[in-house]
């Protein structure tokens, strides 16, 4: 592991801002826990299918997938292969037509369950940034802290600290519309990690960026995974980017056809149930 950098100190400050919350201590422990000691399943998909138009379109077909805490994995596949549907299932912004999604051993069934998970434990970075254009960078990050029982000043302080971590301390009060694509995506990353989630999902996070910005954003996300043990799921069609992940899952026509963590004979059983 590389030597701590000034940015690492900033990130630790994010954690230190939260000692009054029981859940924060839990988060902190989770983040500093060595990966080797924490290989239990974080999230699992069990026989998940997603059909659209009354079954006319099958986006996912009987998918089984287990992601352990601390994993750094890429989901790759061609356009329309089911990558986004899969990632939607992982973060609960869509519901399976059949099958179950299990988080830390507990099946997640209701929208309230998923909302709470996204609020506390899952951060999402979208290709389209999905930021509120009329708000500043600081306010966009602050939005993700609503419902955490923090005062307005603490929300702002924490959002500012995370924005500093992603290198946007000079852009705090800029409207999103005044930021470049790379800066917008860094705001999106800051929003995704401001609650120190256990799982960070990037859905084509570099897809709309120029090469330099894409490299910076990718580096930022990998550093979160490597330095803090944050579980990272990266959806991409960029093979080079995917190759940087220790685990790669390939999806085709809604079926997982390759998972570097699972021997092929076992994988062949998927999608046939």
């Amino acid at each position, binding site marked *: 592991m590389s030597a701590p950098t000034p940015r690492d100190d900033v990130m630790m400050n994010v954690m230190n801002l939260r000692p009054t919350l029981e859940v924060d201590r839990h988060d902190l422990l989770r983040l500093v826990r060595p990966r080797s000691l924490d290989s239990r399943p974080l999230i699992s998909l069990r026989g998940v299918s997603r059909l659209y138009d009354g079954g006319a379109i099958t986006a996912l077909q009987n998918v089984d997938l287990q992601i352990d805490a601390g994993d750094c994995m890429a989901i790759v596949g061609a356009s329309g292969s089911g990558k986004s549907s899969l990632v939607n299932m992982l973060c609960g912004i*869509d519901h399976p037509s059949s099958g179950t999604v299990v988080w830390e051993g507990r099946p997640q069934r209701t929208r309230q369950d998923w909302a*709470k998970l996204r609020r506390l434990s*899952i951060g999402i970075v979208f290709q*389209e940034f999905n930021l509120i254009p009329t*708000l500043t960078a600081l306010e966009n990050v602050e939005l993700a802290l609503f*419902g955490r029982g923090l005062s307005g000043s603490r929300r702002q302080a924490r959002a500012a600290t995370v924005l500093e971590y992603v290198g946007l301390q000079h852009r705090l009060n800029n409207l999103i519309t005044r930021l470049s694509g790379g800066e917008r995506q860094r705001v999106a990353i800051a929003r995704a990690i401001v609650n120190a989630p256990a799982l960070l999902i990037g859905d084509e996070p570099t897809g709309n960026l120029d090469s330099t910005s894409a490299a910076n954003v990718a580096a930022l996300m990998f550093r979160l995974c490597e330095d803090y043990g944050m579980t990272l799921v990266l959806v991409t069609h960029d093979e080079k980017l995917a190759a940087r992940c220790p685990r790669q899952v390939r999806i085709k026509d809604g079926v997982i056809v390759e998972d570097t963590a699972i021997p092929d004979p076992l994988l062949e059983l998927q999608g046939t149930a």
Partner: protein
Amino acid sequence: MNLVGLALRNLRRRPVRTGLSILGIGLAVGSALALIALSRSIKDSTQEGIDEMGDDLVVMQKGASDIFGGFIPEQMVEHIAAIRGVVRASGELFMFAPSAGHTSVLTLGWPDTSYLWKKVPLREGRVPQQGERHVAVLGEAAAASLGKKLGDELELVGETFRVIGIANYTTVVNRGLVLVPLADLQEASYRTRQVTMIHVNVDRGGGPAELSRVRSSIEALGNVTASTANDVLNNDRNFAILKAVSLAVSIIAVAIGALNVLTALVMATQERTREIGIFAAIGWSRTRIITSIVSEGVVMCAFGCILGELFSFAAALVFPHIPTIGDLISVKPHVAVIVPILLAAFALCIVGALLPAWRAAQLIPADALRRI
């Protein structure tokens, strides 16, 4: 930033729509306030007019549906005056009497010997002498609206009266009065030896118990009711109808205001579907999403209510200067009128905001995020 700050920011994004919605709410609230205040003011003005005459009790025909609707034999005045505890009593016939130029003026007829003549606050001229006929004393507003001064002639119910005095009553209703001898008005209106009501002053040393006893004694005379001025107006059918109509129209007006909120928020939430999807994607609960949208409705309602308040105060300032209104009533916005209207407006606006908010909260985040 908090939910209200976010609501304000969102409303400012669409200034024209927000402005029009707030204007709609303002007009609705203002109309409701003005209507209710108007109907209340009519009653208040009438009561103030009766109070200015200094009555303890007002005697009317039993079962009369309104203050214009009953008639009592004039000799009843003597019977009432004879009751122990009654200091003085005076009959009064009143009507909206047609005058020249198709206008009607509230005209009161008092007996020559009535104590009420002695209480007229004359600005100029005099009151009728005993036996003097076809003379009139005008309230200042009546004199102004009829364009009459001392010595002028005035046509009432087909008879000609000479103006002999101008009275400066303080209440709006009394300022618009025309006072004439009772006999003249009885004759002109074919109500010979009849009065509409009897004013009664009671010995106030006896307190409420004495007032109650006198009241019972008067009612024992048969076919009459004795009430305080407030009771008379509370039981008046015309005022009840006026109040009911005003309330109904006000409810419709406020409901239209709520519809404005609903329309504005339905459109806003449709346009902001993706944004709502973002809120859901970062873990906002349904309750928070609903609260954020309802907050916009409440903020719009708050501004609309302030605007409505200003409209109603403007009405209160302008109406008295409109002769056909200002001569009869004074519009006074009152806390007892404002608070219920504002509460109703907020309640209806929240209901109006709940529908789009509920619809937004039902969205599947992935679907919402796909919207452009």
